[in-house]
């Protein structure tokens, strides 16, 4: 098992290295230099100083090694467009906001998604099933930006207690967390329904029933616990989808999260910030996937056995 974890860990490092390298190559293949796009003309001596400040006067290979070294120290450099802040400071300011939004959403999705799917499976082809499946098909089909703007139009402008945008108190987080949660919630419930249906037909469920265990105990102890495994396996990619969703949701609700900084950095062509945030996101996502994989393995003994068998 330790061997498997080590292998996954090594793969994660390779992936992060690949992201850093790709980001570096892409950002340095943009024609012209990053300061030239500004409207005002920069005198040559100032330009030279600027290039020196960001290490752009050195050969590319040297810059690349410098960049790798700095990332290893978690130093993403200085923002090119905002004079007062380093990329680290911007991440430190934006990430907690985004993380809170993301965690609240995934919590909502994890509480209601599997429950909805389990109910649908238990009442297969009956009204609760149809209701649950309609909810989840709408959830999968309506993009988060559509849902977000509809929530503003029909909830935030009508209910006084719920603000249209901004950030700070708990009530600010309600609508954006919900808007972000709907897509994973729908996906979880669909997955839960099909895996639950498969498991309810298994022999061990019949055995449990014939032993005279209460229906509730059979469902909770035997069916749900097994049916929830596929959901854990897609948690990693769900986190990655949440990040994408957060770009949009933060924009609609005016939330000062990392997604906002990323989008503005792209518009401002703030290359150090783009690179820094990209690599940071990659670090977060790849660690999340790694953790999910390890957790999955610890929970499901069948996986542990097959992995060791290799």
């Amino acid at each position, binding site marked *: 098992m330790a061997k498997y974890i080590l292998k996954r860990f090594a793969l*994660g490092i390779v992936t992060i290295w690949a*992201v850093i390298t790709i980001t570096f190559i892409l950002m340095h293949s943009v024609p012209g230099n990053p300061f030239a796009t500004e409207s005002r003309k920069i005198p040559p001596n100032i330009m030279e100083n600027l290039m020196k400040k960001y290490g752009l006067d050195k050969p590319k290979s040297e810059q690349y090694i410098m960049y790798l070294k700095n990332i290893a120290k978690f130093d993403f450099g200085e923002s090119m467009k905002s004079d007062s802040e380093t990329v680290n400071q911007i991440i430190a300011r934006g990430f907690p906001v985004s993380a809170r939004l993301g965690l609240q959403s995934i919590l909502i999705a994890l509480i209601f998604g599997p429950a909805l799917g389990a109910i649908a499976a238990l009442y297969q082809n009956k009204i609760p099933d149809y209701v649950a499946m309609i909810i989840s098909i709408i959830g999968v089909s309506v993009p988060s930006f559509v849902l977000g703007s509809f929530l503003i139009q029909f909830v935030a402008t009508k209910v006084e207690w719920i603000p249209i945008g901004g950030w700070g108190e708990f009530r600010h987080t309600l609508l954006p967390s919900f808007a972000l949660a709907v897509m994973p919630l729908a996906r979880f419930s669909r997955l839960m329904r099909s895996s639950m249906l498969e498991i309810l037909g298994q022999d061990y469920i019949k055995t449990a029933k014939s032993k005279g265990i209460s229906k509730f105990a059979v469902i909770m102890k035997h069916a749900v616990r097994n049916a929830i495994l596929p959901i854990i396996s897609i948690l990693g990619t769900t986190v990655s989808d949440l990040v994408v969703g957060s770009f949009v949701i933060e924009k*609609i609700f005016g939330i000062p999260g990392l997604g906002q900084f990323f989008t503005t950095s792209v518009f401002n062509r703030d290359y150090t910030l783009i690179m820094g945030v990209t690599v940071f996101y990659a670090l977060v996502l790849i660690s999340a996937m790694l953790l999910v994989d390890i957790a999955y393995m610890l929970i499901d003994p069948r996986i542990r056995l097959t992995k060791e068998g290799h």
Partner: protein
Amino acid sequence: MSDMTYTKDMFQKVKRESYHADEIKRPTIKYWADVWRRLKMNKLAMTGLFILIIMGIMSIIGPHLSGFDYKEQDYSQVNIRPNSTYWFGTDELGRDLFSRAWLGTRYSLLIGIAAALIDFGIGVIYGGIAGISSRKVDAIMMRIAEVIYSIPYMLVVVLISVVFSTAGSGTSMFVLIFAMTITGWVPMANLVRGQVLQLREFEYSMASESLGASKGWILRKHIIPNSFGPILVNVTLTIPRAIFSEATLSFMGLGLQLPKPSLGTLANDGLAVMPIGLFYQILIPSILISLIMFSFNVLGDGLRDALDPRLRK
């Protein structure tokens, strides 16, 4: 016992041709005809297919129906709500939203289908090669694919659009599709590889191999045709994903080049005027994109059910 007596004249000789008890009386249903028959029974999937056909037709003829060009600006007709002249209203530059909405549908569909087809092409080739290669080559190829796939998809798309677009003018459709397919082909490759590994163990593949068929022949004649079903389902479900990514990207302002509209850019324009009470401008592209997503999703689900031999009656 009954007291009925059997006499010889009650019997007659059976003609030879009516002996064939194993003769197939009903017309045989070809595999795909059977799939289609079962798909037709799925009302939700057929609704999806119907909506898609309508939207496909409208995306071709829609922009020419209202008589207004999609980029023609008329400052005397700004932000007009839907009426009999402007069926979907006009935007803040006085452009006809009916033409723009259907043109946006056209680009969204084109991007989705193109991205899915490219993913399909690369996935089939890569997955097929990995599947029929030796274990070592297979392991290396799958590791590479795994690394590519764990690179967060949207970050790559954003980076590529940044590099290949000039500031403020958006991205060309080609770059957008390219960016989306960089990591998008991996699930397809995984699927094809899995199918190949499974199918090449089947008796007919082994029979073919023992008759001296080459790997390429087995791949082309036995494995690809037989894995076509799951692949088709995957393509159907990749299209809405690509459309969703494009819309999200456009909504963030990184989408298609101006003045070409996509459903995402239209929604983004709509969001800007939503606070001043012009909700219809975001409503229309939102409905269209949700309909597309819904239709592809239910069609994909329906196809999966229709192709599943366990659900066959």
